[in-house]
């Protein structure tokens, strides 16, 4: 398959229209205060279930790209948010998408050397990383990951048709659908908190005039190194499983602040701050798709939702994805580039004309609309009312757990990685038992040892970082 074949497939009118529609709808939902990019993807992803895989992937990628950018609207609220951030978004999104286009295929060839036990350890590594990076306690993050793994076992077992962990409930026999669980865990807690408090109506003080493209280009060209550095940071952070746009934004912002020139006042409306955080944030989209598509380990929470939707489509992610579904995957990557370019006109127009109405949408309309979308979207996955009930119940459980420091992200990752981890674990266990060398099977293979070492390092790194940070303070106090 030639690269041009996929490019031409991405440029069909339907795919272009889907990319534009995805960018616009993602931007609108992402711009609503209180809603996140993950939520935008989770709420809109059921729309793709009736589509063939390539258009579905294109729509999801475009929604994600738009939602990340839309999130900047209520955050920035300075002048016209559509102008400088749309240009920055377009440029840095291209960096992430190009990284996906160039890095993913060779990495997938490396990943072909992985056996069942390596996949098991890779799933554990992904879990350890997100648990370590996720906010709050490491112990709670790991417990959340284990809970997600256990929830993924609910229903009829693939290997032997045993009915597992249903505790007599017929509703659970069909298992927990990953997308329904993701919608519940990511959307319902947000709704529960949104409904409880009066709307914080944002005051838009500045009255924008025109697109101010020239001014925006000048601002960005003056900070081109900041843009490039932040885009690279965003891409790298996006590649790390579990680390999302917020981590990338913070790292890029602090780097930009550290490298600030005289006269730049970060924290007081300095455009370099917006460029750094938004560039890094948006570059995580392309970067995050690398582990998602190559290894089946989601780079960011929205990637987890997209991964779940791919499973609904019958596509199994992993290294063979680039050979088995080459045309679909490359069409998607090209479309991601196109969606990134479409961000510019969409961002300019929405930022100029629509952002005020989006960010001041009354909560009384927002809550029932989102609740309604979660119900209809979940129902559409398998035409099942049980999925809707499970989605709501899981959402409530997720909200309660979240109140006490058990974040949703590790649970979701456990749910996604559960089948990969179980398949690898059971196969390795069976082979190891047959060879009467279980220890050698799990701990003796070179790639496994390397992944275990990374896992241990990722688990210990927060403790080491804390100790390293504490030392100077202790010395200072003394």
């Amino acid at each position, binding site marked *: 398959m030639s690269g041009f074949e996929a490019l031409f497939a991405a440029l069909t009118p339907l795919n272009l229209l889907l990319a534009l529609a995805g960018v616009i709808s993602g931007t609108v939902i992402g711009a609503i205060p209180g809603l996140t990019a993950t939520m935008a993807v989770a709420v809109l992803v059921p*729309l793709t279930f*009736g589509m063939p895989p390539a258009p579905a992937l294109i729509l999801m990628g475009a929604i994600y790209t738009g939602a990340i950018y839309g999130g900047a609207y209520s955050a920035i609220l300075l002048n016209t948010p559509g102008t400088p951030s749309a240009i920055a978004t377009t440029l840095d999104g291209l960096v992430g998408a190009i990284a996906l286009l160039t890095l993913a295929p060779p990495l997938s060839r490396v990943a072909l050397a992985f056996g069942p036990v390596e996949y098991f350890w890779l799933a554990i590594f992904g879990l350890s990383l997100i648990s370590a990076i996720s906010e*709050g*306690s490491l*112990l*709670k993050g*790991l*417990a959340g990951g*284990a*809970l997600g*793994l*256990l929830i993924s*076992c609910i229903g009829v*077992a693939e*290997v*032997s048709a*045993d009915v*597992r*962990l249903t*505790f007599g409930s017929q509703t659970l026999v069909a298992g927990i659908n990953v997308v329904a669980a993701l919608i519940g865990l990511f959307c*319902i807690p947000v*709704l*529960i*908190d*949104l*409904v*409880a*408090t*009066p*709307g914080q109506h944002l005051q838009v003080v500045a009255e924008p005039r025109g697109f101010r493209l020239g001014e925006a280009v000048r601002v960005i060209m003056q900070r081109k190194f900041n843009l490039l550095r932040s885009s690279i940071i965003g891409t790298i952070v996006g590649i790390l499983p579990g680390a999302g746009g917020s981590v990338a934004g913070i790292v890029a912002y602090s780097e930009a602040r550290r490298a600030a020139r005289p006269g730049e006042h970060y924290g007081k409306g300095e455009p370099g701050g917006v460029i750094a955080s938004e560039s890094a944030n948006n570059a995580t989209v392309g970067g995050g798709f690398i582990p998602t598509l190559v290894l089946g380990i989601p780079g960011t929470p929205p990637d987890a939702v997209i991964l779940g939707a791919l499973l609904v489509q019958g596509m199994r992610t992993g290294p063979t994805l680039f050979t088995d579904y080459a045309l679909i995957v490359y069409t998607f990557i090209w479309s991601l580039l196109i969606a990134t370019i479409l961000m510019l006109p969409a961002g300019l127009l929405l930022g100029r004309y629509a952002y005020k109405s989006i960010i001041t949408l*009354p*909560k*009384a*309309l*927002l*809550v*029932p*609309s989102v*609740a*309604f*979308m979660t*119900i*209809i979207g979940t*129902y*559409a996955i398998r*035409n099942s*009312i049980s999925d*809707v*009930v499970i989605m*709501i*119940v899981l959402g409530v459980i997720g909200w*309660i*757990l*979240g*109140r*006490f*420091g058990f974040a949703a992200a590790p649970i979701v990752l456990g749910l996604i990685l559960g089948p990969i981890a179980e398949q690898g*674990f*059971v196969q390795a*266990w069976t082979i190891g038992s047959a060879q009467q060398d279980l220890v050698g099977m799990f701990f003796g293979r070179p790639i496994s040892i390397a992944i275990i070492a990374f896992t241990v390092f990722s688990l210990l790194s927060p403790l080491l970082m804390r100790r390293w940070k504490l030392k100077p303070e202790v010395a200072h106090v003394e």
Partner: protein
Amino acid sequence: MSNDVQRASSSDAGTAIVAALVTLFGVAAINDTYDYADFDSAVFPRTVAILLVILSLAVLLRWLAQRAGFAAAPSSETVENGGSWLRRIALVVVMLCAGFAMPWTGFLLTALVSFGLLLVIAMHDPWTPARLVVYPLVGVAIVLGFYFLFAKLLMVPLPVGSWFR
């Protein structure tokens, strides 16, 4: 016990309850795995359940240690949610009722009624004549728009409802 530790331990008591519940779920899961016919079905969930029990017990022990003053209290881990509990509960009840009622009342009627109820639950501002007209109209437009999108364009067989058959 210092005031800080006392305050943290009382505000974080929910952590202990949640950790205990998760531990119980883990124990129930371990017990469940002994009923499976094939060992291959049991090995993974049993291993994970044991891990879950160990981790949640560790959370519980850490909480006890904090309560006894042996460890620093991580005050930032719990989230203090303000706002109306009544509205929170009403939201969940309405959504669950909509899910359970849909097979009987059908998608359209359930969606319109639940949208209206959620609109009232989420309304914190005073109702003005304009809002009384515009908000319900917008709600109906959203419900009908999504009904058309899913039922007619995406061909999702939305429940008609046994009352209307």
